[in-house]
């Protein structure tokens, strides 16, 4: 589809291109994707199956679905149909040019390293040029996760629909991000001191939660966090919003597990370089892990046990694994957020079952962040976020030929497409649109 899109940009008049990218209503009709091998993820793969989409929802998936007259047919013969992929830890839309501070929305200043009230999606730029190129590569939803500090802020799930943030936002908050590992910088903080600080915040939030009225009348002892931060932490204390702890060393993961037990928190481990060492315990405690498959370097003393088999070993032990980028040159940056499918391919090369890897970029993140009723699988009633791949979606040679979000395909060329088109023949014809 992308090649077609380039041709479209070149050959057709601008007005026609604009029409193709026009309002959803024009295009959100009945669409039948027929003949492909369909991976619903929530059910076994079906050969030569049809995915029927109406008004932005999936209405039927199966081998014997009747295609209504007048439906737009997409021939997927010989192709693979999956749910749109989810990047479970992304900065797309929150970071346009990493070195330009005015385009960075990922890291809050916070107050004394606490930024629990920070909702990064409120600063997200829905017109980021990186959104389109990410969506074109088959990513239809992202989980924005803030970074930095002790409590970084809140995570949210956004779908890559065109429109504003409110159109994109599917669910938030879906987590509270915290960092328990070693904190480097001007002054190193010992782990145990960080831990004390976290306990103090949680205990003060407990005070705040039970004595809100006293707090408002200034009849409590001084509390360490701001009112807004404690307010944001209340659902974490109540176990309604999970604490996403960015942590690598096995003993640090154990510490996070202990904190979660002590305070009755739901825990999600992010990073988790040495999580494979605790695979059985993480599985038993039903703690999901967000990790990658492209890092094997003992980069830090906290990641000495980093290995590419991590995701596969965790999945084998029964841990809920979401694949995210965890290597430089991987999908940690906004520009390469689309590469999460290669993370999945590499996970397979290092021992993860193929179906488990597909799950790890679709349904598992949807479950982990509480949106599996909406996205992450192909089933009647789900949002029509569907991708038709030319071949195995994890392979470099494959491409996303059709990407539907809410049953709509976007055809506008990306900035990258426009640059490639302009310089495809040299010298460029600057005056030709």
């Amino acid at each position, binding site marked *: 589809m*992308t090649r077609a899109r*380039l041709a479209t940009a070149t050959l057709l008049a601008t007005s026609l291109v604009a029409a193709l990218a026009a309002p959803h209503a024009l295009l959100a009709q009945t669409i039948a994707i027929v003949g492909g091998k369909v991976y619903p993820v929530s059910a076994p793969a079906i050969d030569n199956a049809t995915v029927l989409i109406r008004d932005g929802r999936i209405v039927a998936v199966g081998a014997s679905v009747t295609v209504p007259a007048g439906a737009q047919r997409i021939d997927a013969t010989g192709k693979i149909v999956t749910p749109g992929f989810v990047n479970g830890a992304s900065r797309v839309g929150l970071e346009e040019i990493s*070195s330009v501070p005015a385009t960075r929305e990922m890291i809050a200043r916070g107050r004394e390293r606490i930024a629990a009230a920070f909702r990064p999606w409120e600063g997200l730029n829905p017109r980021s040029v990186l959104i389109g190129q990410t969506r074109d590569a088959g990513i239809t939803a992202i989980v924005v996760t803030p970074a930095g500090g002790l409590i970084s802020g809140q995570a949210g799930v956004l779908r890559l629909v065109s429109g504003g943030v409110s159109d994109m936002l599917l669910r938030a908050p879906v987590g509270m991000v915290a960092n328990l590992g070693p904190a480097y910088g001007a002054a190193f903080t010992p782990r145990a001191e960080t831990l004390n600080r976290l306990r103090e915040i949680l205990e003060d939030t407990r005070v705040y939660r039970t004595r809100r009225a006293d707090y408002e009348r200034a009849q409590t002892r001084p509390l360490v966090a701001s009112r807004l931060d404690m307010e944001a932490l209340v659902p974490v204390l109540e176990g309604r919003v999970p604490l996403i702890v960015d942590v690598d060393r096995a003993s640090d993961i154990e510490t996070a597990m202990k904190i979660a037990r002590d305070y009755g928190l739901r825990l999600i481990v992010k990073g988790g370089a040495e999580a494979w060492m605790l695979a059985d315990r993480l599985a038993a405690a039903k703690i999901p892990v967000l990790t990658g498959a492209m890092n094997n*370097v003992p980069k830090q003393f906290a990641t000495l046990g980093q290995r590419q088999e991590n995701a596969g070993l965790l999945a084998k032990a029964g841990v809920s694994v979401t694949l995210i980028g965890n290597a*430089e040159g991987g999908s940690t940056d906004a*520009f*390469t957020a689309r590469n999460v499918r*290669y993370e999945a391919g590499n996970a397979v090369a290092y021992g993860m079952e193929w179906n488990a890897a597909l799950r790890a970029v679709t349904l598992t993140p949807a479950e982990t962040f509480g949106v599996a009723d909406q996205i992450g699988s192909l089933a009647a009633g789900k949002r029509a976020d569907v991708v038709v791949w030319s071949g195995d979606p994890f392979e*470099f040679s494959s491409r996303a030929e059709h990407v539907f979000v809410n049953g709509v395909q976007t055809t506008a060329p990306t900035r990258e497409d426009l640059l490639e088109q302009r310089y495809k023949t040299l010298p460029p014809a600057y005056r030709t649109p």
Partner: protein
Amino acid sequence: MQKIVLVLIAGGVACAGHRPAAATSASTAPASRATDADTARSTAPGRGGISSPLADPFPSTYRPFAARPTIIRNVTILTAAGPTIRNGSVLLREGKIADVGTSVTAPTDAIVIDGTGKYVTPGIIDNHSHIGDGGVPEDEGTQTDDVNEATSPVTANVWVEHSVWPQDPHFPRSLAGGVTTIQVLPGSANLIGGRSVVLKVVPSRTVQGMKFPGAKYGLKMACGENPKRVYSSRGPSTRMGNVAGYRAAWIEAEQYRRKWDKWNADHKGDPPTRNLGLETLAEVLRGNILVHNHCYRADEMAQMIDIAREFGYRIRAFHHAVEGYKIADLLARDSIAASVWADWGAFKLEAADAVRGNMALLTHAGVRTVMHSDDPDGEQRLNQEAAKAMAEGNRIGVPISEDDAVKWMTINPAWTLGIDGVTGSIERGKNADVVLWSGDPFSVYSRAEKVWIDGAMLFDRLDPAARWRTDFELGFVPENRGGAR
């Protein structure tokens, strides 16, 4: 995040004068002893006072590791020298590729490896590496960061080999990715960052034991944002300041070269005073050191080409060349290679126009193109990076074959280092730097299974117990034997 730091703070460097590639001696020596490659060296009297062209004060002590004749049969061979050979054989003997083709006879004592369903490529060459100079653990700040001598905008006097730590755990990981040769570069903080070094990815106690015999030195230069940011308070703080800085350095270097060339010719009177930095630059002007120029923007590359012309040196390769596709015709005209990433972009403003089609567009314009890493993770997977760039070429209607793509990571980078006469392709007589892949190297599921350097098998994925582990890893890093697979 780490990547960004490396890109922003570090950068490639280029070469300094050294022996020409043709003058290989050690690389043609027969394989003898498996160890202690780094111990033999003579103790001839020093000539430290003399600025002699082609001086080699830190000579390579590399010797090939012990090897047995080996034949890989029934294998698909991407030669980087011609069309793919299907169902072929390659014979490695006495450190060289003794034969390659569809019917190869092997000596009776040869180890026979069945390559059915597998692929052979030349050993991968990364011409932009910071492993060894930016070792791990990297979160210890300056303790392992020896990439940028960011104390002056022109540090032509530094040689990056004096920063390289042979026990960096990155080395065995790159080898396991099929990488047999790397160019380690100083960073990009400086206009002129210092000399590079070309290394074989082999275990050694010393850097000298890794140095690629006969490889030329490189000189690292850097354009754009990095130097002007690093030196913003003292200058250069602008791109025009950058250019003034290069030109001032070359003016001095030209004078120095003339003075020394005259003295070297007639030996009249006392020799001029030696200056390490100018000595390196003079070697560039003499053509003995190859220039590797970190540069993102098209307009800046065009200016660097003019500066090279002004002072009579050649740019061997632009590194990163994020906007290379905009001036592919200029690069092709001047035979300047472009060393690029598959899909890095948007990490700084001068990378805002990154396109994944860069590699394919450059290749089609006739530019010698190189897939480089500038990153220890990427270096382990240059085959995957090449696969991404090939896929993008095919997507935008600029078709790239596997035979093209394999050159990006083998013979083309070999040319940029001046070692394409001895390595970088599967051809009779070349060094037996060879990778056996479990499947098509451009598949995400394939991995390097065996890696030979000069005919010696230094990595075998099927024999985890024999895996090279650096001193650092012992005790610190779990062995991971077995693993999930």
